[in-house]
């Protein structure tokens, strides 16, 4: 029982971080019907940026987030303008797989050259501190990471629901043609939306670097998890991504705690398969139109 509860605590806290990464991924899909295979690489790039700011200037990774999100927002906009916009609308979904994979490899190469292939981790000095609550260990950095992810998701929610830009984004997701007819500049929304997705990757990257060691190749593991989360939650649904992220990390943490770490990755894929058999559109996905 103790191991089970400890597993749930770990899973929920970690789930928050994955939710942040996946929200960007699902947003990009929702807006442009682009499956962004570079999202994992962007998270790792965000982690490297936070690492560099910490090592060179002593900036705490949490405080570095405004800087790294701005940089990654610009990277995201640039990627959209340079690589995705030129694609023809009709085959954008299919081609975007190749193009974003190429972007992922490009980023990986850039990171290997800049920081070489050794694993890095951001060691702030407080990364091992933990509280004991009723006999359960709560790692401080995980709790901060979780709270930060919640705050970032809250901001994203406000942005999507309370601003003009957000309304334009939602309109584009739900019905791109009508949105265009009503005067939404879909190209601009797409560029900014991609930037926003990259910015969430940067925020999640700072936190990821605090929790786990990473190198330029870490994005392969990440992207497979992210895609699964996004599919489980329903493509294009930010809320679905959050719920799915928590399910993923909680189920794998519980299995790791109570059965064996060897089965933990597998468990999640079993859940994914079962859900897709019953609900092919994912937990919160819709069939006809966008889900945002």
């Amino acid at each position, binding site marked *: 029982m*103790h*191991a089970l509860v*400890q*597993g749930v605590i*770990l899973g929920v806290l*970690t789930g928050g971080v994955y939710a942040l990464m996946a929200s960007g991924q699902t947003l990009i899909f929702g807006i442009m019907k682009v499956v962004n295979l570079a999202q994992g690489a962007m998270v790792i790039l965000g982690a490297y940026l936070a690492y560099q700011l910490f090592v060179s200037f002593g900036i705490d990774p949490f405080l570095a987030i405004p800087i790294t999100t701005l940089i990654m927002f610009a990277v995201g906009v640039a990627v959209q303008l340079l690589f995705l916009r030129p694609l023809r609308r009709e085959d954008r979904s299919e081609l975007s797989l190749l193009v974003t994979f190429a972007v992922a490899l490009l980023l990986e190469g850039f990171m290997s050259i800049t920081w*070489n*292939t*050794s*694993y890095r*981790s951001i*060691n702030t*000095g407080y*990364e*091992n*501190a*933990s509280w*004991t609550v009723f006999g359960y*260990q709560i*790692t401080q950095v995980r709790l901060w990471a979780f709270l930060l992810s919640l705050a970032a998701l809250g901001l994203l929610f406000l942005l999507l629901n309370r601003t003009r830009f957000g309304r334009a984004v939602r309109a584009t997701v739900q019905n791109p043609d009508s949105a265009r007819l009503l005067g939404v500049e879909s190209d601009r929304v797409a560029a900014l939306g991609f930037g926003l997705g990259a910015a969430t990757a940067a925020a999640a990257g700072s936190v990821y670097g605090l929790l*786990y*060691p990473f190198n330029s190749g870490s994005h392969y*593991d990440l992207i497979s998890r992210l895609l699964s989360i996004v599919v489980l939650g329903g493509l294009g649904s930010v809320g679905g991504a959050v719920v799915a992220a928590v399910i993923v990390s909680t189920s794998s*943490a519980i299995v*790791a*705690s109570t059965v*064996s*770490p*060897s089965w*933990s*990755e597998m468990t999640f894929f079993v859940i994914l398969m079962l859900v897709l058999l019953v609900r092919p559109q994912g937990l919160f996905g819709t069939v006809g139109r966008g889900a945002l």
Partner: protein
Amino acid sequence: MVSQSNRLRLGVTAAFVVGLISLAACSGTSNGSGSSAKSKPLVIGASISLTGDFADPGKAVKAGYLLWAKQVNAKGGILGRQVKFKIVDDTSSPSQVVTNYQNLINQDHVDLVFGPFSSLLTVPASQVAKRFGYSFIEPAGGGPAVFDAKLDNLFFIQPAPVIKQGEVFADWILSLPAAARPKTAAYAELDDPFAAPIAEAIRARFEAAGIKTVYKQVYPAETQDFSPIAAKIAAAKPDVLVSGTQSEDAYAQVKSLVQLKFSPKFMYMSNGANSPVEFPSKVGASNTTGITSSGDWFPGSTAFGSAAFSAAYIKAYGGTADTIDNTSAESYAAGQVLEEVAKKTGKIDNATIIKTLHSGTWPTVLGNLSWNAIGEPKGTFHLVQWQGGKLVPVYPADVAKAKPLYPKPSWGG
């Protein structure tokens, strides 16, 4: 048609003959100009991972080779011949490494070859060397697969095969008086040929000696969160924790145990914990105290040529003795072995090397090395322990610089 092709063949043959004659003439003139075999440089070929997964350790191998070459050349070379390395990049790829050694041997006609980094690359590379009758002195391929091939031309330049790395920890624990020995043990093992078997070898000896196994877990390489494993270890409260680790998983295990505030009385990690710079930087220097691991070269070692190696390394690459990568010491030792063969036999060719190294002991910066018929080293590693923020050899007594510290103090102590 037929006649045309015959004419063509004739032409080619003629060109070939002319080429041969001119080649012979060339070599004749070069001999004539007084260049003897003795003053010709001794070219050693090696394929090293300068890019790809093994780029970092690969560079450490290269640093050791080149440092040795510089040292030996300053002393007048080997049997009067200057040592030259021809190093090519294999991008950490097992197929490229084969191409590289074939080219080094058949096109570049290097005199000797040294090994690449990792068992993964050593296995195919050693086969190429064997096929062409080259000796294969290699400092960085000690996994079971390397010796499974049972090659007689291969010599692994480390004190023992990788899976025997943990024997020294078992030796030490079992040498303690019965009252001081741990009663219970936990094992956390990375599912990797270089990690789990080391811990398993220790477990076999511990169980035979009556140390009870209270927890054992093999974890896959993708494991990111060690909290579940650490929680189970903490719940089992073992006296000794034996971790079959590589690098990142070692750091993560320590971090998780610190977070759970569980500190066993004895702790051994096969790898990761023996990295002098990375380990304290990843887990925090104050958390290292009392953790043991296996090592071969260490700063302040009195082994053959060690002081000179250390001084030359710092001069060439900067840093301090504590930051010298063991991998460089191992590749440097490969050169030392070669030097000793030449000194002993007065010859430096592949057949002599293969014949000579199978008997006797050979002094290196890693201590005295000797090999069995298939190139497995017959020695043992040293037990190293973190004390006062430094990695110190503590067992066996003849190499120890300090007494082993036990029980291990709690984290941060």
